[in-house]
């Protein structure tokens, strides 16, 4: 064999002497490179935010007035050490499901709700237990609940589903999460607008369609996207409700 030809590798024969060091070097670089990529990619992940299922609180049971926006809410009138009276709880069923069937018959009435809290900043949601254990009528007259109109706003931010945002998933926002959020919205989970700037102290607003309707399906294309949109904002307890006009959706400048 001439010296001008490099060592010739044949897979089923022993590795030529002249290639052994080279292959050791390449192998070491490859393994070290994979380890390095694993480290850099692993530590490049963004903070998913503080939302979480509060399993550490245990099951919470409170009483309040059921309202429909049309998404069901409970305005807490009789709380506990974790959930104070005046708190407004968005409601969801197990997984990506709603509690409409249980909440609609109780609209405007006093009800006891029980489940696991999801919490992110000012946003509170209760994932109800199944059946009457999760929601049942309570004897007595429902105290009147006030709401305060805050006028028309143009907000920049993102529409997402309130449950993943509140902590069911970390992260629970963004375009990579869009299909999951859409699936939640299809299941009737309350949508939430994450505003780039706080409105009356809160960056999270329950978002509905105009005039007490559900979020229009036309806006599902914009879920997870950074947009601007206009609508009426109303305060219900410690929760803001943003009733959007879908014709005003636009891109932030």
């Amino acid at each position, binding site marked *: 064999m001439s010296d001008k030809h490099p060592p*010739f590798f044949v*897979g089923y024969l022993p590795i030529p002497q002249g290639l052994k060091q080279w292959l050791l070097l390449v192998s070491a670089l490859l393994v070290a490179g994979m*380890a390095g990529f694993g480290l850099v990619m692993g530590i490049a992940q963004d903070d998913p935010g503080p939302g979480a299922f509060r399993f550490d609180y245990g099951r919470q049971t409170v009483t309040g007035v059921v309202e429909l926006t049309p998404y069901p809410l409970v305005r807490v009138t009789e709380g506990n050490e974790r959930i104070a009276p005046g708190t407004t709880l968005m409601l969801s069923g197990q997984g990506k499901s709603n509690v409409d069937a249980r909440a609609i018959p109780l609209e405007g009435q006093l009800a006891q709700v029980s489940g696991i809290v999801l919490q992110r900043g000012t946003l509170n949601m209760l994932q109800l237990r199944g059946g009457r254990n999760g929601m049942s009528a309570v004897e007595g007259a429902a105290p009147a609940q006030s709401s305060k109109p805050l006028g028309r706003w143009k907000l920049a931010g993102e529409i997402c589903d309130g449950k993943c945002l509140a902590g069911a998933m970390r992260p629970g926002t963004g375009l990579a999460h869009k299909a999951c959020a859409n699936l*939640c919205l299809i299941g009737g989970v309350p949508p939430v607008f994450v505003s780039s700037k706080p409105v009356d102290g809160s960056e999270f607003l329950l978002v509905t369609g105009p005039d007490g309707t559900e979020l229009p399906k036309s806006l599902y*294309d914009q879920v997870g*996207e950074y947009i601007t949109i206009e609508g009426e904002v109303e305060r219900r307890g410690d929760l803001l409700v943003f009733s959007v006009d879908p014709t005003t959706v636009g891109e932030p400048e």
Partner: protein
Amino acid sequence: MSVKYTPVQWNNNKWIYDAIMLAGVGLFLYIFLYAAPGILSHERPINPQVHNARAFGACAFVMMTVILCIGPLARLDERFLPLLYNRRHFGVMTVFVAITHASYIVDWYFAFSMSNKYEALLFANTSYGQLKGFPFEAFGIFALAVLIILAATSHDFWMKFLSPPVWKRIHYLIYPAYLAVVAHVSLGILQDQQNHAFTWLFAGGALTVGVLHLLAALKERARDQALSVAGADWIDVAGVDEFEDGFAKVRLLPDGDRVAVYLMDGKLSAISNACAHQNGPLGEGRVIDCLVTCPWHGFQYDVRSGRSPAPFTEMVPTYNLRLQGQTVQVDPKANPPGTPVDPIAIPQGAVT
């Protein structure tokens, strides 16, 4: 070479190759899954399912990138050829990693609803008319389907069954699959990144694949131009004194095929440059134990007949040669695969 199909024809080098690749994959996943979270200062951790999905997805991308770099690297520097030898095993590993990524995604993001999770994967996001918010999952589904097809047909049985040209064309789908992965990541997780380290690594990996393929293509084009000849009945290959025993001279023929003219024991023979296995460049191999040996996977042929030694059955076309003075010429019309041709002796003293 194969005469009887077994799941894997193991040898020491394959064990070593797989062990090294598994060590790389294992380290990547271990560090991403168990070492990195301790370094992150998040108030609350990323969901384990999302974390796992990201680890396996990122690993699959890095593995595909490495796989696609091996081919051009081996064309640019033949010392990388040993990485090519058992590349299909690394490809099969990649499929398992990619399936794990997809499973975590489907079982997390698309579960927990009233709908079937696989149906939900298809209908949850239908914003196909826009770039932002495009259902990037579709690109991932395509890439995964291709990877599964490639892994399922990676065995030599399928190459024989489908024929090498069809098999090769199917396996070129790795390039659309890689582009689909690039689109999947670009329209998905990259849209949400605040820390751009992953973005840079991702772009660097994809760019490396592109640049290496471009460099390899330029090198091959330059070599093809040097090898090319005008159409003629007989084509000059080289002077008799330019041959080296056990090695070949390669010429590009007018029909686009290449011929490898080998000198063995003072006699010249010509066979197709394309190995019957995976079109490996036989002219870049050498004679071992009186047989031309392919540099890619070690398939062997008798240079005088283009046939693999019994009991193997692979065959490549042969070509007729003649001497015109001190110049070796080849007839560009190939003989049917496996046609014996008498070697031609060259004058003594002409061999280097």
